[in-house]
């Protein structure tokens, strides 16, 4: 039974996501469309499985939702900060800097989410990954203490992502 379940739904969360996106695209909830969404959600992961050999095994949805809420709040707060920098800090006083974040994360999916989070949180853009994937290059718009920025990103985001992908 478990085996059949695993074969049919190699990636249950992707299935759920596809079904929800399909239903949202319809813009109205009807039984037929939900069923069709679920069918798509089953077929698409099966057909694309060959291109995704090392998918992450453990994924905690609850912690991911928690993480998304934290990130959304941070986006809001940091947006106001960047707006202040843009409006009130004179160009001559601006201190842009490159910072390097040493990565403890191994999974490409987790690193992608971390890089995306860093770019979405205003004031920082993730620019590149080192060739073997051990550090992340980030550009900061305005900072007095680059080391503090690294510490914040590591404790606030990376530590949480480590708990999501186990």
């Amino acid at each position, binding site marked *: 039974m478990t085996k059949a379940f695993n074969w049919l739904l190699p990636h249950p969360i992707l299935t759920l996501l596809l079904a929800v996106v399909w239903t949202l695209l319809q813009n109205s909830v009807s039984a037929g469309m939900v069923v069709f969404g679920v069918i798509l959600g089953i077929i698409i992961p099966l057909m694309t499985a060959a291109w995704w050999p090392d998918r992450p095994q453990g994924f905690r949805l609850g912690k991911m939702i928690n993480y998304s809420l934290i990130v959304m709040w941070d986006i809001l707060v940091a947006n106001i900060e960047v707006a202040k920098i843009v409006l009130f800090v004179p*160009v001559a006083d601006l201190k842009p800097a490159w910072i390097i974040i*040493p990565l403890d994360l191994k999974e490409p999916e987790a690193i992608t989410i971390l890089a995306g989070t860093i770019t979405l949180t205003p004031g920082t*853009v993730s620019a590149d990954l080192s060739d073997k994937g051990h550090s992340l*290059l980030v*550009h900061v718009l305005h900072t007095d203490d680059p080391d503090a920025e690294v510490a914040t990103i590591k404790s606030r985001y990376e530590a949480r992502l480590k708990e999501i992908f186990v």
Partner: protein
Amino acid sequence: MIETIGLVCVGILLLIGAGFALVGAIGLLKLPDSMTRLHAPTKVGTVGIGALLLASMIHAWVLGAGSFHEVLIMAFLFVTAPISANFLAKTNMHKNACDTPPKPPRDDTWSTYAVPAHDGALTQKMDDKPAAKG
């Protein structure tokens, strides 16, 4: 009554969204080089567009024709925006339009500089062009 409250919310959200979009545009004009300019529109855009989409959603719900498409727009925007910012940053690194980034501590180089041998001739040609600076 509910309609009035809803419409007031819509108005406030539209103002917030427009305000953030304006700040993004000011940043684009004011900031000095292409790497810092990257920060203003991509960032301020997320809240600006978020507020505008929320306004659109409340408007649709208050007037009776509820819509969830805005949630999808938001989700896809959040997934795709970092990727374009990432490409712009890498282009800046290649064009030397910014300070040269420090070397990574553990690995050899940044992956955008690590070119496979058979692609070498192609990038050579690109690097020969004089870098447009300033």
